[in-house]
């Protein structure tokens, strides 16, 4: 399902994606010829019940997983035609992740966690450190640089995860239930910080979520239905910070 955008070329285009999983003796089609486009600078929210295929779609869009049929094109690169290693290299250069369970590396400090994607991309030491410090300040944790993840609260950990996802300036940020593990108040705080940051950096974001706080920031909302997506009514958008 695509929605034309008057001024922009789509940064991401998913075309006719099919993904089937084997569950015991049966096969279940999670994505059923799904198509969608996302435009540069957009914040897209995907809605759907558990198991509807939201995470599967994020895995396919990021190149973590491979579709049975169909293709994913990001900024002119058909990532489904790439080999595993090339997909990995593409992912680390152009995609940032925010997970529900934060997924920080417990054996690295907060600063090191933020520096990791930049290090994998071969940034020099100065640039890594400068950018990590800057984003740490942006998420409001400048004094926690040398803490380990298990010394932070859930909300703090997710703020570090957001900084990590943005610090190497990826073209696309994928979020899987970013506020799912947080209480209402913390969720609000985190989603506010997240929204401000993506708007400031002009990042393109796709969020799979149930959180109504996130709905408010969405440019487009899609609803999962029987393995494909349909546009849902977007709530009145909050003015940009």
């Amino acid at each position, binding site marked *: 399902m695509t929605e034309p955008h008057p001024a922009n070329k789509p940064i991401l285009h998913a075309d006719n994606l099919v993904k089937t999983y084997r569950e015991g003796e049966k096969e279940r089609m999670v994505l059923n010829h799904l198509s969608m486009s996302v435009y540069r600078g957009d914040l897209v929210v995907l809605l759907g019940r558990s198991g509807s295929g939201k995470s599967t779609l994020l895995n396919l869009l990021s190149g973590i997983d491979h579709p049975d049929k169909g293709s994913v094109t990001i900024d002119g690169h058909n990532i489904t035609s790439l080999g595993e290693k090339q997909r990995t290299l593409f992912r680390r250069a152009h*995609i940032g992740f925010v997970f529900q369970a934060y997924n920080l590396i417990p054996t690295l400090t907060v600063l090191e966690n933020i520096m990791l994607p930049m290090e994998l991309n071969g940034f020099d030491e100065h640039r890594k450190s400068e950018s990590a410090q800057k984003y740490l300040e942006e998420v409001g944790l400048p004094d926690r640089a040398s803490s380990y993840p298990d010394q932070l609260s859930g909300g703090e950990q997710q703020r570090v995860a957001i900084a990590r996802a943005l610090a190497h300036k990826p073209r696309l940020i994928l979020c899987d239930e970013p506020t799912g593990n947080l209480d209402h108040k913390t969720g609000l705080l985190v989603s506010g910080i997240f929204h401000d940051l993506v708007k400031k950096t002009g990042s393109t974001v796709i969020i799979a979520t149930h959180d109504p706080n996130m709905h408010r920031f969405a440019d487009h909302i899609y609803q999962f239905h029987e393995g494909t997506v349909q546009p849902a009514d977007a709530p009145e958008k909050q003015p940009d910070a």
Partner: protein
Amino acid sequence: MPSKSPYNSGLLWRSGIRYHFRRPWLYVLSVVGIALGVAVVVSIDLANSSAEKAFRMSAESVTGAATHQIYGAGSRLDEEVYRTLRTETGFRKSAPVVEGHASTTDPIRSFQVLGIDPLAEEPFRSFSSQQAGIELSTFMSGQITGFLSETTAEALQVAPGDTLDLTAGGNHYPMQIAGLIQPEDEYSRQALENLIIVDISTAQKLFGMDKYLSRIDLILPEDGTGLPEHITRALSESSPTQAGSATDPARLLEASLPDGVSVVRSGSRTETVAQMTRAFELNLQALSMLALLVGMFLIYNTITFTVVQRRPLIGRLRALGATRGEIQRMILGEALFIGIPGTILGMTGGILLAQFLLQYVTQTINDLYFVVSVQQVTIAPLTLIKGFFLGIGATLLASLWPAREASRAPVRIVLQRSEKDARLRRNTPVLSLIGLLFILMGIGFLFLPGETIISGYVSLLHIIIGFSLLTPLLITMMASLLRPVAGLLFGLPGKMAVRGVVTDLGRTSVATSALVIAVAAAIGVGLMVDSFRVTVDSWLESQLQADIYIQSPGFSTRGLDSGLDPELIALLRNAPGVSGSHSVQRTEIQTNQGLDRLTVVETDREAVQSYNFRERSPGLWDRFDNEPVILATESYAFNNDVSVGDTITINTDRGEHNFAIAGIYYDYSSDTGLLTMSRTVYDRFFDSKVISGLALYTDADTDIETLIPDLRERSAGIQNVIIQSNQGLREASMEIFDRTFTVTIVMRFLAVLVAFIGVLSALMALQFERSREMAVLRANGLTPGQLWGLVTGQTGVIGFMAGLLSIPLGIVMAAILVYVINLRSFGWTLQFQITPEMLIQAMLVAVTAAILAGLYPSWKITQTNPADALRDE
């Protein structure tokens, strides 16, 4: 899109290292495991090489500049040969030597005694000539005087003029120290450490070699310089010179010497003697490799565990863009973080362990092969380099598969927990088939042409790997059988304990395999030693038919040093109560197969009964005393590839003669084998009348225990000899046997220790990883005591399974050691024995190791607040 993905991520590396710092106990156990494996290999190698180096150094130092040596047909050479060589043939660059071994009593230390003529020494040995400061007046005073190296004198705390109490050939001699030799360098210091230099006549007195020499040293230039005229003439008539040809100076010189006297290149005898220990050393090395193999399982286990535990983390890294190669290198880098300190620690430990093992290795070489005295471990750089690469190589090899596993799994799967266990359960049939294939390949290696000892060990390795791959299937099968029993005995916790082994198959099967291999190795080596012991015991029973045995004290079972005094022999043979006797002489002869050991026996009705033949020609005993025939031991036939009817050419005092092999008999006294000849035949071909042992038969009414002190009393003052009853000799022989296997037993213990550490770390890791599951059980009402029972129960089940599984593998290993490796190493046929005590002991070791391994984690888990364990990260 970036095109390069260099592995320069210090953060990935830092993350991996910190993971290990957070689990220091697991890290330390892994390091200790690899360290022990490396230490065992390094120590055996150092002990072997130190003994060999000491032997070669002392051999080289006493050989000096000699290019050739003249030997007699037997183990001694008539001194008349030397006189003829110097005076009649006019060969000046020659020096007579009488060699033997003696010991000091306080402290007990053995020495090589070199009897020389200082006037003839100068071209040969710098340390024993007049130039070295040997004063003829004190050296050739007619008294027993000798020279020692300065460092040896310091060690013995003696000075020139002091007297040393020396024992040689069973007799005590006070030896006055005439002077000290100052070693020129470190090499000479070590080479001369165990040497006493005496005048040739003194050595003849010490070793009962009146009018005989051990050998004559020669400098025989190939261009003929300095050679007697007739040889120079012969050489100029036919050129070029070819070694071994009729125009070779050595052969020409030999032709001018009496029959049976041979000229050999110096060092060739040293080489022959040094090679005797080849099979012994190879077997020790193989046993030490077994410990390293178990150590490899430990590394594999540790790395697998760290990978399994970090699968979600690896998933995150992959999602963030770390490539498979980067993950693989991260895991291998972590393995090196264990392997490098483990290896360095192992090499240090190996040097220390070598000091301990050296005495046993040296003792065995002395008991079985030749006399060597090693005072210290020589740290050979090559051994250390080998140890380093073995340790690192074993670590990397053991980590390759888990590293590949970590990097290969798709990110989607990595993010799921316990996928590996589920996959392992699914893959069990495939793994089992591969395991069976390995076992079949292992059996196939046994039938490879060439029948080498290496293929025996390769077969053993394949069977071990095959059995490890079968372990998951066997565990699953055993668990389904044990579960209802455990349920009946211990209720639900019992069932859970057994089921837990299968649920965590990915980890439990590796831990179990490591324990199975170590315990099976213990069973295998144990059963082999038991089989050997039983075989030797029954062989001794049939071999020792006489009631009393007399021999001169020697330094080795080769026992070539001295003979019994003829006066004593006559006295003992005619002592009241003695009804019959036969004599034995052990000597060395030169045959077409090389330098061989010969036993010369007087045959009588009883002696004939003591031989148990594998193969014999008809009418053997009639021919034995009358024809040029010999008997060969099974190991001689094996090592030299001869059988009944073949001919051995022996260099006798009457020249070269052919002797037919009339029988091949079982014998376990020498792994290099020996030949046996009748005394009557020997006397026809050799001049030596030496008798080195006597067997006495007593009257039916004589009490042996009374007769022995009586015989000792009669022999006092003539010669100090060992007089033993049949039973006493058997016990002494078994004592040597047990001493020989001490190193083997130490190796076995160390292999089990490595496995124990492996099981300890694997089970501790496993139980700690399950702390959340345990907390859920605690939250649901399981008491700390019940939890303790559950954890210990599970480790106990693993121990029980490992014990059971190790029995068939251990028996197969023992069978290969007995029927293939021993046979191919030494040519011995052993009676295979399965002793139930050994199997029970193995079960106990396995269960105890596993239960001990579970104690700490279960205590730790019961001490933890369930709320802490239930809390998310």
